[in-house]
């Protein structure tokens, strides 16, 4: 597929749509959107950046670009690193949706918030705390405050409630989408002109889910309704330490298996290994041996259950149940029961774990100079195998074996996220990381594991393996994006 490199005439057309202050091909402005980190290392500088404010402007931009065969990459917050940038050259237009930042409605009775793409996690969180303190949005748990609610929907990410209620994609009810063919489609119950966004499946079938994980490759979402959940005041974190990922996996599954009650109270269930702590500091300014971390009370592996309850009594019960299940597991079923023990967290540690949104995942560049999250989904009871395999591959390449794992929907899925800390100033480090990514992808696809946010170069094999699925994905894309202009390269499309 070939695309046109936009020229001055195309810039004029964009200016005609959004006004001269909101479209630019200034080279410093276009370069400023670049990112080669977090999720994607390969990315291109856009040729033009456009900052629309209204759905109608987006419609006109897409119709124009489609007619001219100019690639379009949308971003809401742009925090998915390289994934927020174009993947190909000519890179075309980058649509920065940050100006569309209105919180349009909060409905406590029906429990949803309607947001535009530019509404950030931090902004919505602060707004709800101020005006709807008993309710909270399912914002990405570890993403920085400038990430958006919308971007996380399209990434079908991992949020504060997903351990309890299910994948982030399920938290979104209805959306307004502009397709490059010029159609504006409202999904779910919103398909009817006067309906509230109260039923995701609408008049059926559910079209919105098709956009989940679309990475901007199908259309531009201009409005979405996201569920909100209770924000009770009774909260704490229960943590257990262990010596290996298998005990972490199996104990967590026992709690998740309860399905009702305590499994629903544990809104955020996440764990990992001690290098998760170590690599938040510069590598020459922190001891590397586990002995040091042991001495300061950090387990080799651990699992945290962040528990929310409507009353103190209910919270106490949840804590007690998790602890007694853990004791029983330690005594009767653990691989290394002797090493298992409750991790008594300091109140400050608890408070810092419960802070939303936070910057907890930002300082992994501090270790060296750059990092990459490579995230996979596995069935929960295979996450320990994933961790073991991945960590071994990292160590082989002299990369610290940093592993973070969380439960989705009461241990139906695991989201496994190795954090690759490396020196991004060095070409050889780039190559090392890509080699690690390729080798582990091959292993993981053979095991039937899924890359969470597939990159267009390595993880893309997954689409080739899912041939029939991909055929229909292409067909749907052709329908809504006949000239294949949306974020080319994403999802192995076009």
């Amino acid at each position, binding site marked *: 597929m070939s695309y046109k490199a936009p020229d001055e005439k195309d810039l004029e057309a964009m200016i005609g749509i959004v006004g001269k202050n909101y479209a630019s091909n200034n080279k410093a402005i276009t370069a400023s959107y670049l990112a080669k980190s977090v999720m994607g290392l390969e990315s291109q500088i856009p040729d033009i950046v456009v900052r629309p404010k209204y759905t109608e402007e987006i419609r006109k931009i897409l119709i124009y670009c489609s007619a001219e065969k100019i690639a379009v990459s949308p971003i809401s917050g742009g*925090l998915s690193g390289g994934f927020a940038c174009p993947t190909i050259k000519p890179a075309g237009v980058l649509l920065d949706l940050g100006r569309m930042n209105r919180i349009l409605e909060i409905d406590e009775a029906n429990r949803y918030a309607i947001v535009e793409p530019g509404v950030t996690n931090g902004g919505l969180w602060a707004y709800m705390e101020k005006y709807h303190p008993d309710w909270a949005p399912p914002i990405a748990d570890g993403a920085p405050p*400038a990430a958006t609610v919308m971007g996380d929907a399209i990434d079908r990410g991992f949020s504060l409630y997903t351990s309890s209620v299910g994948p982030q994609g399920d938290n979104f009810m209805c959306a307004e989408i502009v397709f490059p063919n010029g159609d504006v489609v409202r999904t779910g119950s919103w398909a009817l002109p006067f309906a509230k966004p109260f039923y995701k499946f609408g008049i059926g079938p559910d079209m919105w889910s098709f956009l989940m994980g679309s990475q901007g490759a199908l259309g531009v979402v201009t409005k979405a309704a996201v569920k909100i959940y209770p924000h009770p005041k009774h909260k704490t974190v229960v943590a257990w330490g262990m010596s290996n990922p298998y005990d972490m996996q199996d104990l967590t599954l026992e709690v998740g298996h309860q399905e009702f009650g305590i499994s629903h109270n544990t809104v955020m269930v996440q764990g990992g290994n001690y290098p998760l702590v170590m690599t938040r500091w510069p590598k020459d300014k922190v001891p590397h041996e586990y002995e040091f971390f042991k001495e300061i009370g950090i387990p080799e592996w651990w699992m945290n259950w962040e528990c929310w309850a409507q009353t103190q009594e209910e919270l106490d019960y949840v804590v007690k149940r998790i602890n007694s299940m853990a004791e029983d597991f330690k005594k009767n079923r653990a691989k290394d029961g002797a090493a298992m023990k409750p991790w008594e967290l300091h109140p400050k540690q608890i408070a810092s774990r419960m802070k939303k949104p936070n910057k907890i995942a930002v300082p992994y560049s501090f270790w060296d100079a750059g990092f990459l999250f490579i995230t996979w989904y596995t069935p929960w009871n295979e996450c320990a195998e994933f961790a073991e395999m991945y960590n071994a591959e990292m160590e082989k390449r002299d990369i610290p074996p940093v592993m973070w794992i969380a439960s989705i929907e009461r241990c139906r899925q695991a989201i496994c996220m190795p954090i690759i800390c490396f020196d991004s100033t060095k070409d050889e480090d780039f190559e090392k990381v890509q080699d690690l990514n390729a080798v582990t992808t091959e292993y993981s696809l053979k095991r039937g594991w899924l890359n969470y946010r597939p990159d267009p170069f390595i993880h893309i094999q997954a689409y080739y393996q899912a041939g029939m699925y991909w055929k229909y994905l292409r067909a749907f894309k052709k329908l809504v994006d006949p000239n294949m202009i949306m974020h080319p390269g994403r999802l192995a499309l076009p």
Partner: protein
Amino acid sequence: MAKTGMDRLNELKKEIFKCIHCKACRFAYSGEPSRKGIGEFKGKQGTVLYEGMVDSCPAGIEYGWEAFWNAGKIWIARSILSGDLEFTEEVRDVILPCITCGQCSAQCENKIPTVDIIESLRAACVESGVPLIDKHALVDGLVKERNNPYGGAADERFKWAKDAGLDKFVNNKDAKIAYYVGCTASYRQIEVAIATAKLFEQLGMNFTLIEDEVCCGSPFFRIGEVNTAQTLMKKNLEAFKNVKKVYFSCAGCYRTFTIDYPKWMAEGEKLPFKTQHAFELVAKLIQDKKIKFKPNAELKGKVVTYHDPCHTGRHFAIDMEQEMIKESKNLMFDSRKIKQKIDEWFEIPRIILKKLEEDVGIVFKEMYRIKLNSMCCGAGGGVRAGYPDFSLRTASLRCDEANAVGADILTTECPFCWRNLSDSNELYEHDLMVLGILQMITEYELLDILQKPTEADLLGK
């Protein structure tokens, strides 16, 4: 040999490549979206919710494009280093309207020295042959000709001292202590210079005003004209070489001498004297119970707030942090110490304000964004000279914040902040009184000396 901007940019390469474009650096309190504040306030520049995190990069707020927020500039720097972008006037016009306030740096969990990077980027841009903008070229011409960017006559630098009857301190050869006045206090806010010198006099300090003093170079380090800046630096180092300690009343000059000079001096060279801001001395004398303040009926009950100048507040705090990180062997252990040191640093002006509250009866009320999260006054980074409208709008945003806490008096400790805040106060009718703390002390004759400071008090730190 003098360092070039490109040398500095290359030295900073690893820091630049740490940026993950997380954009936390847009906000004050970026890690505290649930922080309680004073709620919504409708000011002269619009409505701000002083609650949780708040957009606080003046350049980003003014221009909106990603390139003007800090993260954008870091990726511009990276694009330059990797050859994806070349310096042009287009690039210059994006990297210049930044106040180098350092609010971005204070937010970065990867501890990226953003101001250093932005300044080096500008220096490299100038070296590449891209001309200065006209307004900057003008001040560059003036300083080259007259040693100050205001165009004041060089021989009138200490006219204020002579007029105020302080001429005995000019070229006072046997003093071991110097007061570096700076251009703004010498030619514009002479009340700051007079207040500071009189305070020193009242404290019995034997100090000198050195006639060979020239502009500290701050504006030129900020705008990337580092050749001019380094020439001025050399002149000052020569002029002040015989004193043991230099006091300052200007945040920018203090920062330039203390933080910039050592960075741009030749490898292994050190400042030949100690440096300190006058407010540090006053705070120490309060803590040692050597001075207190007299009651004042006019000030009693007045709501006073304090604006932390970026140059004395955040820039020092960040520099302290970077130095302590460099020295640390185990940062996990030392990070608490670093935080404590930074907290203590920001407390210094507050020691004075709290004492004024206790003795004079002012009501000291903090704005929402303070200390590391303070919002800039808009004057620095060459912005006041180059982009005066943007500069004054930013100052007005800060005055709005002072209005939001019901302040009668907005104090600060930098003549450059003072000037911008005052001008904006007038232009946008904020109805505040803008005052330097030391100026308040001398103008209202508040100083009550219990015990004269010793030589150790004056020469220490």
